[in-house]
């Protein structure tokens, strides 16, 4: 007994000198037999262990004895634990399996370009939109440097893959924006209403998009607003065209924020110096304001409100083409209000909830007159109000798969008056969708879904199936395919006059390949799109129009090869024909060019703390209608090719602790002639070129941001 006690005593009291050491050696590789350096090998519960060297080998001695658990840990790999008898020397060969993390998991990518701050390698960052030269900090203009979008700069909107601007829908936090562009006058397209600084993520989908989105035949521009700001700050801006000021306030507990912003733009002084083609007779003057409120309601819950109001007046005189010697005058007063309230929360058991509500109202008052002619001026008033609500439920299934379903309801009142003649309608639009992202393996995903819609003004229902697949070949490369049906109501100006019209329809087929590494991105896409039931206005309103679009697109972006330079190149080939509106047969429409290319170049000079940007865009000529040609030559003539070079320089500095940026940008710097088409007088005897109202725009501005700005750390000798 006492002998045993003594043994016990020695055993307990002297753990350090108790036992003999044994030597553990071995090698760690991945499943492809490549050695893994840096693996932490540990005998659990003790300090003993080692780190593998460049050839994956390790060696250490341990005093732990008997059956022990040995663990091998390395970032990006699954932890391996194995039982080892350390009473004797051991020689081990360890194979680590790579961990499936979100980075390596395939995502649906056909048709979509995403710009976000996520850790994932995305094609564009939000800042890229702001710093694209020639884009004038306009989201749509920056998106036009991506493949798929046309350089249709004589009208507003994104014309994508043979589609019109109406076929692209804009959504903010999931809610539709009925009037994403400011109202336009003839040949003077409106700008995008929303500042790119509002958004943390921008997804431009040129086709094949999810069943969550409807009523867009061609494309969806999906904008996601920023969450809470990093800090409280205030800002002021002064430029050659106006002033702006804003305040962003973040609460002490960093859970609530509100912001107010206002701007005033007056182009009259600028147009006094740089005369535009059409001379202003009203304004142009814009008052804009926006408010936001954001609250983190819990660890996973987020409530966001955004409100926007804008009042514009502008008018121009131009020489009348119809009545030589006379002047035509157009005046526009526009009021626009947009509000958006959304709430997201994780409601437990892998369920997520999204609810949204939005109200918007847009009123255009247009006065068109041929001065000194004895006609009464034409007075047009168009008002559209849209209320909408949306609910989506998400359920996570397994590790990556997700099921989504939900519904939305929109109530639209469209009123229009022309010289006292009214054409109004009300539409109740209801939609439901369900969609699942099914991961067969982490590198192979399928998305299957469908969308059903009913709109009361047409009195018709539709069902749109959507399918896409993506397969990740390795960490960088993936293939995707997508198919889907897309329905859209005809434009209000046709529904107003004929309630018997039906939906227009497009079917998309897309094959894409992309390779995304940390410093470069390559992407190419092949698409075919079939149009059915397009609106025809001749001989009477009907849905007998049709068409197709097909093409190939290439995108290359490189951030590394040249120091401090980031550039991208995109090229689109488009072959499209359609028979719609008053077209006598299928032709290439007047908004489509066969070849479009862009080069965006950004160079940062750290010593001067200046960013220089250069954007070159090119498009082959677009068809135009010449009434003097025989009917079988409809749209057979094309305009000259389009060339534009935008240049911008921004200088970053600080003035009395305020972070300050000076921006100089010049659109169409070399002053290339740009012709988008021709207007003909009704007798066909006279014609005029459709050219930009301002051939070259020079913008100079200064923006200051007050607050504890630590952007200095950015430039911190990195």
């Amino acid at each position, binding site marked *: 007994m006492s002998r045993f006690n003594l043994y016990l005593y020695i055993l307990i009291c*002297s753990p350090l000198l108790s036992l003999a050491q044994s030597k553990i050696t071995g090698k760690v590789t991945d499943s492809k037999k490549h050695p893994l350096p840096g693996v*932490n090998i540990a005998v659990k519960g003790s300090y003993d262990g080692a780190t593998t060297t*460049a050839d994956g080998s390790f060696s250490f001695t341990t005093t732990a004895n008997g059956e022990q658990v040995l663990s091998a840990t390395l970032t990006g790999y699954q932890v391996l634990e194995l039982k080892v008898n350390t009473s004797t020397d051991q020689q081990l060969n360890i194979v680590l399996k790579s961990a499936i993390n979100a980075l390596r998991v395939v995502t649906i990518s056909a048709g979509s370009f995403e710009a976000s701050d996520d850790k994932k390698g995305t094609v564009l960052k939000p800042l890229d939109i702001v710093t694209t030269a020639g884009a004038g900090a306009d989201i749509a203009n920056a998106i036009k440097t991506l493949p798929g979008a046309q350089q249709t700069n004589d009208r507003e909107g994104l014309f994508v893959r043979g589609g019109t601007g109406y076929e692209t829908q804009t959504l903010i936090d999931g809610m539709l924006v009925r009037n994403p562009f400011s109202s336009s006058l003839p040949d003077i397209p409106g700008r995008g209403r929303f500042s790119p600084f509002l958004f943390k993520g921008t997804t431009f989908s040129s086709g094949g998009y999810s069943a969550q989105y409807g009523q867009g035949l061609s494309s969806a521009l999906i904008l996601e607003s920023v969450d809470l700001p990093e*800090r409280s700050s205030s800002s002021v801006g002064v430029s050659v065209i106006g002033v702006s000021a804003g305040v962003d306030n973040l609460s002490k507990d960093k859970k609530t924020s509100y912001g107010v912003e206002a701007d005033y733009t007056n182009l009259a002084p600028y147009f006094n110096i740089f005369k535009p083609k059409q001379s202003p007779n009203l304004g142009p003057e814009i008052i804009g304001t926006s408010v936001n409120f954001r609250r983190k309601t819990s660890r996973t819950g987020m409530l966001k409100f955004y409100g926007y109001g804008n009042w514009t007046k502008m008018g121009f005189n131009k020489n009348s083409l119809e009545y030589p010697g006379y002047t035509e005058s157009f005046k526009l007063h526009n009021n626009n209000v947009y509000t958006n309230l959304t709430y997201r929360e994780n409601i437990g058991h892998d369920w997520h909830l999204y609810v949204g509500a939005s109200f918007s109202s847009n009123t255009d008052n247009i006065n068109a007159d041929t001065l000194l002619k004895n006609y009464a001026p034409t007075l047009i008033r168009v008002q559209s109000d849209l209320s909408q609500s949306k609910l989506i439920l998400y359920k996570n299934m397994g590790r990556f798969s997700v099921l989504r379903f939900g519904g939305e309801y929109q109530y639209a009142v469209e009123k229009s008056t022309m010289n006292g003649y009214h054409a109004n309608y009300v539409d109740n639009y209801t939609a439901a969708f369900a969609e699942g992202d099914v991961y067969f393996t982490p590198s192979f995903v399928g998305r299957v879904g469908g969308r059903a819609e009913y709109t009361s003004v047409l009195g018709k229902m539709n069902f749109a199936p959507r399918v896409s697949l993506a397969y990740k070949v390795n960490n960088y490369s993936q293939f995707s395919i997508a198919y889907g049906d897309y329905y859209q109501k005809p434009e209000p100006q046709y529904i107003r006059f004929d309630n018997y019209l039906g939906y227009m329809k497009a079917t998309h087929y897309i094959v894409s390949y992309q390779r995304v590494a940390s410093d470069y991105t390559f992407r190419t896409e092949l698409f075919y799109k079939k149009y059915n039931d397009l609106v025809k206005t001749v001989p009477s309103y009907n849905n007998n129009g049709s068409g197709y679009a097909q093409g190939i697109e290439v995108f290359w972006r490189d951030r590394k090869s040249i120091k401090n330079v980031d550039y991208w190149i995109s090229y689109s080939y488009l072959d499209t024909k359609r028979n719609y509106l008053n077209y006598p047969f299928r032709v290439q429409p007047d908004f489509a060019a066969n070849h479009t290319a862009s080069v965006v170049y950004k160079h940062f000079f*750290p010593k001067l703390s200046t960013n220089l940007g250069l954007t070159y865009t090119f498009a082959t000529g677009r068809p135009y209608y010449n009434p003097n040609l025989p009917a079988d030559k409809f749209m057979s003539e094309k305009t000259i090719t389009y060339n534009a070079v935008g240049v911008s320089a921004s200088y970053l500095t600080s003035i009395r602790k305020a972070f300050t940026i000076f921006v100089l940008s010049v659109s169409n710097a070399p002053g290339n002639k740009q012709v988008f088409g021709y207007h003909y007088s009704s007798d066909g005897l006279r014609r005029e070129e459709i050219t930009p109202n301002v051939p070259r725009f020079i913008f100079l501005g200064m923006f200051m941001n007050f607050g*504890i700005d630590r952007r200095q750390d950015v430039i911190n000798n990195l």
Partner: protein
Amino acid sequence: MKRIFLAFLFTGSLATAAMAQSAQYQDAMVKQTSDLDSSSTFTPDGLQQKANTFERIADAEKSQWLPYYYAAYMQVMQAFMLQDKTQIDPLADKAESNLDKAEALNPKSSEIACIRSLVATARLTVDPMTRGMKYGAEAASQLEQAKGLNPENPRVYMLQGQSLLFTPEQFGGSKAKAKTTLEQALEKFAAFKPESNIAPHWGEAYTRKLLEASQK
């Protein structure tokens, strides 16, 4: 009697075992923390080895915050030395998870806030243009917190001085201000008494180097 003796013997041996364990921890930590200021440690491989060693100690002890803290410090320094920027976020994630464990054992630590500031700066370097706003502010606010928790912590002033030194003047950086702050850091180093011989005490040599650079 025999039973009492046995009981006595038994408790005695448990205490000895515990002391031996703690001595082993002390020895290991002293050994591992003694060369933290040496340049031979500061290679990517050297830092990884040290990080792994600290993680082994941390996982074996489980109740000590220092090994988690040092593991995170090694990991974030490794992140700064990496050429491949795609590796920075995973390392920063790892460092942060170690800091979370350290903080659970030792809340409201000025030293942990200092490392969190470094982690934010490391994340910033992945994509300064887009991440600058977020992580720059985070790095600065962590240092402010660290200062609030312990105004005598010399590493706070060292890191602030470093930030001032490497910031171009038009963004509020200043060699003169950096010099003052770094000199202040050295004063704090001189007065600083670490809680134990294994508590954080690194950085004085690096501060001198920074000060030299600020005087050029």
